[in-house]
């Protein structure tokens, strides 16, 4: 099973003001480390495949918007599709869910973070970036509780401080990093 090959599952959540850091981060991601990367970004549903397009110019890894029951592979970047929650099944597949919005958001960062914590446990690395609502804080806490590594963007460095602040309030952060430290994080990992 491909799932067993995955050494780390990196889930990145961001909302308003997070794009710039995401672009920098993606450019520096290790390509052959057998990590899997999942991005959950709040955005309008009409900007469909634009994000995947922008990101694929910055990394040699395949970047794709997830389709239902797609297998989770290492060395891939997956994007939660607009208007669906993205979940991870124990057998190493993605599931989509179009149920109620969480924190006015679908995809919700909490949903994916909690699901990642549940199926990948301590192998999970959660990164929460700039944003204007509380989505992601609980999910990040769940990753921490399962023994995963959790990183929160320094609110002082974030374009919108609210989301990282909520995570810090919930004691979900193992590390609080500035933008350049986040971007360089995997270079030194």
């Amino acid at each position, binding site marked *: 099973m491909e799932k067993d090959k995955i050494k780390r599952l990196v889930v990145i959540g961001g909302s308003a003001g997070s794009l710039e850091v995401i672009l920098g981060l993606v450019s520096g991601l290790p390509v052959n480390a057998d990590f899997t990367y999942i991005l959950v970004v709040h955005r309008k549903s009409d900007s469909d495949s634009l994000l995947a397009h922008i990101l694929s110019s910055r990394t040699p890894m395949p970047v794709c918007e*997830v389709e*239902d029951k797609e297998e989770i592979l290492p060395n891939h970047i997956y994007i939660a*599709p607009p208007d*669906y929650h993205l979940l991870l*099944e124990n057998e190493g*597949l993605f599931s*989509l869910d*179009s*149920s109620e919005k969480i924190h006015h958001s679908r995809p919700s960062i909490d949903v994916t973070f909690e699901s990642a914590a549940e199926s990948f446990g301590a192998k999970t690395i959660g990164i929460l970036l700039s944003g204007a609502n509380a989505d992601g804080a609980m999910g990040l806490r769940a990753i921490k509780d399962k023994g995963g590594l959790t990183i929160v963007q320094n609110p002082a460095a974030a374009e919108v401080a609210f989301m990282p602040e909520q995570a810090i309030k*919930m004691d979900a952060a193992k590390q609080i990093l500035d933008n350049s430290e986040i971007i360089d994080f995997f270079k030194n990992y």
Partner: protein
Amino acid sequence: MKSDVTIIKDEEIDLLLNELFERYGYDFTGYARASLKRRINRLFVIDRLPSFAELLYKVRSQPEYLPHFVEEVSVNVTEMFRDPSTFKTIREEVLPVLATHPFIRIWHAGCASGEEVYSMAILLEEANLLHKSLLYATDLNASVIENIKKGIFPLSQMKQYSENYILSGGKKQFSDYYTAKYDWAKFDERFKSKMIAATHNLVSDRSFNEFQIIFCRNVLIYFDKALQDKVLTLFDDSLEKLGYLVLGAKENMRFSKIAKNYTQLDKEKIWRKIK
């Protein structure tokens, strides 16, 4: 916050699903586990259940709790003209083909509160085909089926639906199709007269007719691959040759054994049965 929410364990889910099947014949074992688990966890919150034992007790001893359980565990989110480009393709490429048929039968499987059924009825009317069409609307939940018979939807959604309608190629004034009353929009009776609404469980019920189009959008995502395959086979058995199957924007039939008999229309999630 988190700590006072009961998180159900996998073995408890197995016990619960077994109970639902043995006692009531509802089979949720083929549902995708991650989202099913979320739905059950959500029940603990909305029903203020203190423990799994309490939930199990309710399911075992209160048959009247069951419809509520099924309704809350299944997802009933839908909208009118969702993914407008799909409806545009149906308008431009599918309806002209159907127009040649003397009679048109359409099945909306897992239609929830019926927004999509009304969208399709509007499309058929604009193509001057509604008079010879019948729309079968089925869902697992009896209560949401009732909504289709009423044809009443929240007025607050109409702005969004109107935008979707225009993007789907609609040329008329969308608000002409309904009457606004308080917070509700009631759609004209002429649409309802062409609909047949009934409960149908895709997991356990069989094919009941042959159709030219089957819609099943954002339902398969809640099923595991084996159940998806089973349900797609049910659709294959229920679809006329050269009929169309319409799935949700992020769903795909490529993993299934029926895929070889179908060809996809453009980039839309519309497949045509060629064999």
